[in-house]
């Protein structure tokens, strides 16, 4: 995404639903502002509907499966299963109208990716989702660091839209496409 250009979602954050906040930074603008949107939406009766999707706040943390899969190998199937998921609360599943283990398109202010929506044993509250740390999560994470050097891994807002037909990309292929490099498989992992 070139300088000055926005992802579709962040246009939403900027203009329509709340006062015009001029962003401190153009590329990878944080959508932490948008927690304002969530605050505002919550005041209006709790549901954060937008089109056929909902807006929730997402945190990315480490998981035991993801940790083990790092040692197995970043191009292994175990890593693919461990990191390409998003955990949602039951009310969010109902709001989206989908049942467990279906693919959803998750869009944040700086990128969008297909993940599998699953339920979780570590209970969340409605309006909070969790994506294990990994290449898929970091497509979504905004890179604005408030001049502290630390990007915002926990607490950025995403639009979740059901996308049952679309397929989750493999990590290396996903990275190559997003970076505009030609993807040619490698004997080590294909």
């Amino acid at each position, binding site marked *: 995404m070139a300088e000055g250009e926005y992802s579709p979602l962040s246009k939403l954050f900027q203009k329509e639903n709340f006062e015009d906040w001029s962003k401190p930074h153009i590329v990878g603008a944080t959508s932490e502002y948008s927690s*304002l949107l969530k605050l505002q939406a919550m005041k209006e009766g709790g549901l954060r509907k937008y089109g056929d999707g909902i807006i929730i706040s997402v945190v990315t943390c480490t998981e035991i499966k993801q940790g083990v899969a790092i040692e197995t190998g970043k191009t292994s199937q175990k890593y693919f299963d461990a990191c390409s998921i998003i955990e949602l609360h039951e009310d969010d599943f109902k709001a989206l109208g989908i049942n467990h283990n279906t693919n959803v398109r998750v869009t944040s202010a700086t990128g969008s990716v297909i993940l599998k929506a699953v339920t979780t044993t570590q209970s969340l509250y409605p309006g909070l989702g969790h994506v294990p740390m990994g290449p898929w999560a970091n497509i979504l994470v905004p890179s604005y660091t*408030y001049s502290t050097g630390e990007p915002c891994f926990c607490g950025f807002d995403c639009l979740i839209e059901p996308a049952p037909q679309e397929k989750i990309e493999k990590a290396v292929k996903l990275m190559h496409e997003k970076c505009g490099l030609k993807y040619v498989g490698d004997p080590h992992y294909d």
Partner: protein
Amino acid sequence: MKTVTIKLKKVPGLYLECESVTPDKFAGKSLDAIAALPCSEGKSNYKLGDWFEISGSAGATAEETKIDVYGPGTSKCKYFGAWMSAGEVVINGTADMFTGSWMTGGKLHVKGDVRSFSGLQMKGGEMLIDGRAWNYLGAAYRGDWRGMQGGLIRVKGDAGSDLGTFMNGGTIIVEGNVDIHVGTHAEGGTIIVKGKAHRRVGGQMVKGEIYVFKGCDVMMPGFKKIEEREIEVDGEKHVFNVFIGDLGERHPKSKGEVVYGHLYTLKE
């Protein structure tokens, strides 16, 4: 007041550190002496002459020297007017980080935006920014407990987060809105925000005044409203709700009674 005009020839590849673009360094120098002043981009050390077209003449002392900076790539030049003690610098365009940091006097006027860490640990002088300012405006260098001690910073647009961290004195006026963390750890000085603050205004504040005209979304739990008073601020008279704060922080005693920080929001 003699004026030196410098114009950037080409946009720097990575960035340019121009610590030497201050009236103190230009004062009493001929044009080619100024052109020989150092500036650097990463490892490669250049001369000012390599990057800037320099014209006009410098004054004998810093007070009499005015510097006009033009050029397309000023948004990639850092340390403009850093450590300046007198004279005037006008930047027609956006300036990058550390603009006017460790300033002890003089006037710095930036016609465009200013990026982070500008006006760092300012001791005096005046800084006028027409565009917006980013984070850590008028804050302290990492780890230093002596923040901005004096001087005035006026921003016409919005400002970023961490405005006036560890502030000891001086005034910061922001006409637009402000992001999180205003006046954190403030121990003096005045911050006037004419727009709206996002959250965490006056966190861990010991002393000093913060005026937020349009209020903030989430108040800090450590602030308690005590009264409503009419106060004259930056030429305008308004009635303000007065909060004393941050009750979670340790407050010194001076002349018997405890000193608190004050947060004022408009009463509408």
